[in-house]
């Protein structure tokens, strides 16, 4: 096994899937010679050529829409949206078309499509290079939404997404592209879409999170462990379809739940987790379900003090855990 970064694991997954299956191809802005602005496709243009690593016009609706057409024909496109912030022109194609194709045609047509998009803040990207978009899409039946928190899962989940017969939105925590490192097997493996992962067992509080916030959640859990608070960290990994069983079983063990995401609070994914707990584990709760989320402002501001105010971090999570433990 080799240690690699998150972005290396993502690149490795695409490389292996393109070598395994000639139907797999990549399409997006700057994915060719440039190798992607985050270098996720570095070297793939040289290896597979311009027909399988397609530099697209600068137009997101058609990156996804053309991908849908190719998928209908039997290919396995991986569409790269350069930043999740730029995905909204493709919202119509993702929501009205990719997600609904199977249902509306009564299964005559299906869309085996992966849409990769770097998301999240804390990188000085301001309002339009920092957004978390998962709540918009996790709402949509027919669409799978996956967010890896580490290189091992990223490779395995992305390979599962490429092999999946339905559209998958694969959101990558861009702050973690080079910050998140870990052991990744050389060999072929998949991490199935769906199951959550308990990355740290604990008996006092369940902490539900995903993506970049998982990194800070583990740090926070370590901080409060020294004070005798044992936190169970649950990495959701797949937001749609979500693993309700693991969520409910964890809360039934701990009796307390904190949900952390950097997307803003209102109507965020945490609301769905909180509702799941309220419906399925109410009688096990020893405290109100708490959410620590980005504040309800229109975006992550650029200037460092403003960005720091916006972003959840290990300290803020630890404080929320202490407050919940004391309830």
């Amino acid at each position, binding site marked *: 096994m080799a240690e690699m970064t998150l972005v290396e694991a993502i690149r490795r997954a695409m490389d292996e899937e393109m070598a395994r299956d000639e139907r797999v*191809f990549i399409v997006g802005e700057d994915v060719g010679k440039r190798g992607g602005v985050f270098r996720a496709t570095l070297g793939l243009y040289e290896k597979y050529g311009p027909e399988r690593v397609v530099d697209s016009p600068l137009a997101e*609706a*058609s990156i996804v829409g*053309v991908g849908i*057409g*190719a998928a*209908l024909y039997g290919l396995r496109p991986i569409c790269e949206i350069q930043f999740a912030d730029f995905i909204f022109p493709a919202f119509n194609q993702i929501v*009205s078309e990719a997600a609904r194709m199977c*249902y*509306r045609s009564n299964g005559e047509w299906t869309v085996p499509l992966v849409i990769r998009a770097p998301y999240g803040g804390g990188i000085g990207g301001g309002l339009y290079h920092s957004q978390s978009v998962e709540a918009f899409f996790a709402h949509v039946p027919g669409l799978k939404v996956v967010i890896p928190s580490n290189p091992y899962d990223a490779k395995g989940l992305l390979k599962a997404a490429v092999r999946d017969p339905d559209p998958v939105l694969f959101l990558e925590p861009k702050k973690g592209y080079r910050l998140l490192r870990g052991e990744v097997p050389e060999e072929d493996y998949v991490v199935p879409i769906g199951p959550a992962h308990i990355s740290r067992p604990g008996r006092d509080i369940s902490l539900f999170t995903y993506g970049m916030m998982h990194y800070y959640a583990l740090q926070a859990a370590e901080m409060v462990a020294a004070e005798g608070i044992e936190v169970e960290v649950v990495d959701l990994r797949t937001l749609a379809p979500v693993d309700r069983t693991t969520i409910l079983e964890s809360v039934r063990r701990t009796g307390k739940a904190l949900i952390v995401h950097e997307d803003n609070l209102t109507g965020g994914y945490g609301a769905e987790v909180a509702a799941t707990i309220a419906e399925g584990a109410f009688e096990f709760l020893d405290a109100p379900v708490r959410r620590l989320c980005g504040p309800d402002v229109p975006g992550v501001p650029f200037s460092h003090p403003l960005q720091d105010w916006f972003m959840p971090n290990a300290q803020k999570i630890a404080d929320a855990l202490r407050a919940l433990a004391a309830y």
Partner: protein
Amino acid sequence: MHLSEPKQVEMFWMMLLARRLDERAWVLHRQGKIAFHISGIGQEAAQVGAAFALRRGEDWVVPYYRDLALMLCLGYTPREFMLSLMGKREDPSSGGRQMPSHWSLRRVNVVSHSAPVATQTPHAVGVALAIKLRREDKVVLTTIGEGATSQGEWYEAVNWAAVHRLPVVFMVENNGYAISEPVEKQMAVEGAAARACGLGLEGVAVDGTDALAVYAAVARSVEKARSGEGPTLIEARMYRLTPHSSDDDDRTYRTREEVEAAKRRDPLLRMRQHLEAQGWLTPEGLERMEAEAKALVEDAVDYATRAPYPAPEEAAYPVFSAEVRRG
């Protein structure tokens, strides 16, 4: 591009059958037997002309909702149309999930489309990209109304096809109105064909009430596409002889005199007169065709009326591929 006598008579037959089915749909709606109809009356010549220029069943078609005559040419049956109008389980496009005339017919490579206009155009381009990637010699025909050429997704898709020189023919069925809005509220140029010049592909305007003229234009474009010389934009000019849909009242925005004048240029009448002038259609021949059309329409109405509705619980699937049920 000469078409034999039997072919031309067959074209007229498809136009006639489409017209009688369409007229019957209006009657069924007035009788309260169906909930909705969206009509293609006045557009049959262009649709049949285009269909006859394809390798039907082999080339791919990404249509829009007025294309009943086009669909019949591809093998869609009168019974299937009536099943769709009545929302019956056996409707091959969607099993009663979509509104009528939202076509899908996998057995002859007709892709499912939705109601937000121009969303289908990128799909056609994606299919064409896949054809080119696989080095096959199929082509794609995609149709659209002139109003939808105002959409960004339409521009994105046509631009992409021009950049990559893809084997696709874009046919705009310019029927003069987008619900109530005349062409001059959609574009400052004279017609949709003129939009091509800024996108770097050939734009051709053709009389859409002349099936043979449309056939010639589409056949030439299909040949061009098949030989790797890229896409063409064809604008077929015609007139929408009915209201936009069964929920529209066109008296609120256009005069009866205007509609009556357009009826004198009815494409069905034009084709009939052409065949009669050639001596290829006799009064007895026409009578036989009318009788056959009437019988097919009656059979379709009877069949669809007796056909079962979907069971309510069928509405629960298929959200994902794994839920697809056959039969």
